[in-house]
């Protein structure tokens, strides 16, 4: 499965190669060229440079990817090319040349002319980029109309069906909220390509979508742009995805282009230290169990097999049996229908190991986590923690149970109280559970901060002064405050940039071997699973479709669904020399 997609993307890249080398005029002229571009934002604290000396060339029909973490200036650079910088941003130096024309300081009128018809855009978040109060068809129609193209209902339907939207004519009469995320992104792609632009700026076009949907959408985008001969400027944080889709990759770091070159060359032979770090920590490329590095000293080969046999002999800390959760959904006329979010799921976690629950949104994985945490009641089935069924616990017993099972949630911005400083945040569970006195609690907080590699000077700071990675460390410290036996990580690294993600995963692995923790790791990201889990449970639409050891599931997936999930990991099809992979 994965090898065939590899060939496919290889073919695509080759196809683009030939076109780029033989432009119609005979002399290759870049379609878009950014020369020494600098972008500055004016804030109340003075001018802040966001991008410096950015250099970038896109040839006609070529796909170029800009890769970087959030705040690297990758989106800003691309938005500048289409004159969409926010109000306080401006191009302070350098030039933007589109098709031989300097548009750096072009008039508003000229930019409006270029937008849509010459330069299209597919934005990042399909949920917020369609106007919720207008029908999809209207939003396509006005695009065609504004760019002087025929905009009858059949033209709108044609544009939508080209983007792979089934039953387009009827769908055009629906509102965005009646569409799924994938369908919305298809509509946005339809809009972006509707006027046949020569350049398409795709700003993280699929980062908000499930991995299998992501693959479909990107495949479709590839096919369409190839057919139309559209050049694509792809912005992404995912190096694997960039390498797979683009012909050329530009790596940006802190507002500067640090490296640029052909995709595979950059992956196999990264020269800049940042690119090297990026390549080595990209989960989609360097997929291996993190712990293996630590255990390497003890056991050299076949790391997982002994770990699993050891785990099997150990007791199960959590055993979930026939767990079912049914929600009532209110319908019209006061009727309600049942929605089975979790359907007869059984799984277990051996003490000191990590079990990952993988699935797309709507698979019920987070509901499982909530029930194991005792935050949601089970409709039927049992959850045994250390042999005791928690679904029957009384208030007081539940309180004690919560000490032993702690959560870490996805959003490090939302899960910390902004009014609590870091000390109070970490100390709160200790206080709630009456652990020790003020003095011993402070000592404990210092220890915890030390464990998660944060300086104790951080205690008086507030969450808004911390970076995303630092906040997630605080969340981990808070989870560990009560010396729990099990930590439930619900998408704990999904919101983090790839380098920070790697740090946090390493930290979790270290803490596991130090403290003998058991993890239940809920994630949609299979690449992360490979790095952290011993055991994998795959869920689809509330049902458990496959489970087994990580190696077994990754090397010989049994069900078609798991195979599809694995094949959809960006970069899965890349074949890299062994020293990198």
């Amino acid at each position, binding site marked *: 499965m994965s090898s065939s997609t590899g060939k496919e993307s290889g073919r695509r890249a080759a196809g683009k190669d030939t076109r780029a080398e033989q432009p119609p005029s005979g002399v290759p002229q870049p379609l878009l060229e950014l020369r020494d571009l600098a972008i500055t934002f004016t804030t109340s604290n003075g001018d802040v440079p966001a991008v410096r000396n950015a250099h970038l060339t896109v040839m006609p029909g070529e796909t170029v990817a800009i890769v970087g973490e959030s705040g690297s200036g990758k989106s800003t650079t691309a938005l500048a090319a289409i004159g969409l910088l926010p109000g306080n941003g401006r191009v302070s130096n350098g030039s933007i040349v589109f098709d031989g024309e300097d548009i750096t300081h072009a008039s508003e009128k000229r930019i409006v002319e270029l*937008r849509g018809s010459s330069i299209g855009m597919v934005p990042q978040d399909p949920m*917020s*980029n369609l106007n919720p109060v*207008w029908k999809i068809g209207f939003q396509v129609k006005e695009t065609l109309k504004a760019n002087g193209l025929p905009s009858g209902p059949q033209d709108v339907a044609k544009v939508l069906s080209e983007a792979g939207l089934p039953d387009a004519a009827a769908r055009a009469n629906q509102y965005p909220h009646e569409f799924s995320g994938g369908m919305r992104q298809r509509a946005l792609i339809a809009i972006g390509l509707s006027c046949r632009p020569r350049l398409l700026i795709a700003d993280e076009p699929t980062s908000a979508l499930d991995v299998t949907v992501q693959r479909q959408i990107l495949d479709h985008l590839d096919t369409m742009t190839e057919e139309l001969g559209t050049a694509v400027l792809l912005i992404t944080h995912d190096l694997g995805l960039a390498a797979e889709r683009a012909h050329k990759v530009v790596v940006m770091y802190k507002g500067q282009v640090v490296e640029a070159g052909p995709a595979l060359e950059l992956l196999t032979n990264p020269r800049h230290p940042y690119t090297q770090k990026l390549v080595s920590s990209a989960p989609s490329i360097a997929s291996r169990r993190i712990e293996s590095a630590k255990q390497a000293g003890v056991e050299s080969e076949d790391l997982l097999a002994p770990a699993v046999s050891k785990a099997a002999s150990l007791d199960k800390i959590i055993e979930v049996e026939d767990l079912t959760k049914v929600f009532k959904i209110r319908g019209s006329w006061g009727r309600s229908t049942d929605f089975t979010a979790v359907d007869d799921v059984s799984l277990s976690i051996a003490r000191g190991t990590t079990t990952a629950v993988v699935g797309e949104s709507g698979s019920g994985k987070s509901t499982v986590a909530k029930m194991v945490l005792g935050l949601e009641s089970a409709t039927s089935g049992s959850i045994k923690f250390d042999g005791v069924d928690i679904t029957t616990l009384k208030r007081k017993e539940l309180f004690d149970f919560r000490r032993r099972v702690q959560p870490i949630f996805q959003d490090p911005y939302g899960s910390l109280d902004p009014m609590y400083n870091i000390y109070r945040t970490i100390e709160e569970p200790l206080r709630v559970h009456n652990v020790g006195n003020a003095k011993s609690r402070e000592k404990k907080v210092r220890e915890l901060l030390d464990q998660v590699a944060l300086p104790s000077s951080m205690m008086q700071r507030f969450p808004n002064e911390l970076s995303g990675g630092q906040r997630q460390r605080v969340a981990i410290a808070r989870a560990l405050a009560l010396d729990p036996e099990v930590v439930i990580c619900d998408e704990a690294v999904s919101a983090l940039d790839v380098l920070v993600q790697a740090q946090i995963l390493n930290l979790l692995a270290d803490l596991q071997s130090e403290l003998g923790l058991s993890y239940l790791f809920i994630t949609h990201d299979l690449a992360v699973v490979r790095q952290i889990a011993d055991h994998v449970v795959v869920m689809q639409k509330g049902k458990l479709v496959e489970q087994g050891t990580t190696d077994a599931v990754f090397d010989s997936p049994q069900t078609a669904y798991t195979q599809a999930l694995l094949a959809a990991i960006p970069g899965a099809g890349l074949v890299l020399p062994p020293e990198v992979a």
Partner: protein
Amino acid sequence: MAWYIVRRFLQLIPVFLGATLLVYFLVFSLPGDATAAICGERGCTPAVVAGLREQYNLDEPFWIQYLLYLKGVLTFDLGTNFSGRPIATIIAEVFPTTARLAIMALVIEAVFGILFGLVAGLRKGKIFDSSVLILSLVVIAVPIFVLGFLMQFLIGVKLQWTSPTVSGDATFTELLLPAVVLGLVSFAYVLRLTRTSIIENVNADYVRTATAKGLSRRRVVSVHVLRNSLIPVVTFLGADLGALMGGAIVTEGIFNVNGVGNTLYRAVLNGDGPMVVSIVTFLILIFCLANLLVDLLYAWLDPRIRYA
């Protein structure tokens, strides 16, 4: 949708019953003899008083009085006020004036509020925005009777652009000044609400996408920013319509408008129980209907809202 509207109308029944009961009880509990209000300072003969008590069921216990009143309302007979005129006729006489005044005020506050709010929101932090904000604050802060008398004096008396008071005909030109005064405070609120809403929406992702599609600035603002920004404004305007229809006691008083507010004010002063109860009930019904209208408008503006 049809079911939703039916249900909303059914909800009017308990609201109507509760409101009339409450108002009736309050009027019933007023100290003093109701007949004293009718007879004035000279007083009536005991026979006349007894006749009046008979006519208005004043000797019956509270529950009987209330049920008799309800029976009258349900048979479309609102009874007579203490001067002996049919209440239904009085309401039919004064309500059109108030309705006209209210609609004029609503149009003024909506048109100018949204227009100024839009421009201020799009030019956030610029001089127009700042001055409009200060102006609206002044309008909100100064009591309405001060503004009312001030404008009546300046425009009606000094400049004589329009008549300072409203005659019985209540023509359009006569009502213009009262309508401006009546709409002034809401104008300030509409302006501020629109401005905030515009500022919020202008940075929305879909607005950026609309710009990227190649739409002109004018179209982006009118199609993508304005409609979305109007959703909270419409809610406010609808609620305000209910309040304005209820008659502006102060404004109608200043400009001597023979409307619902003035009539209610006189009825309260006279202790005219049947009149007060009837007008208040009528206003409550109007308010409920205005709210229903807002909810339907809301669903029309925002397709994500569907009533079932």
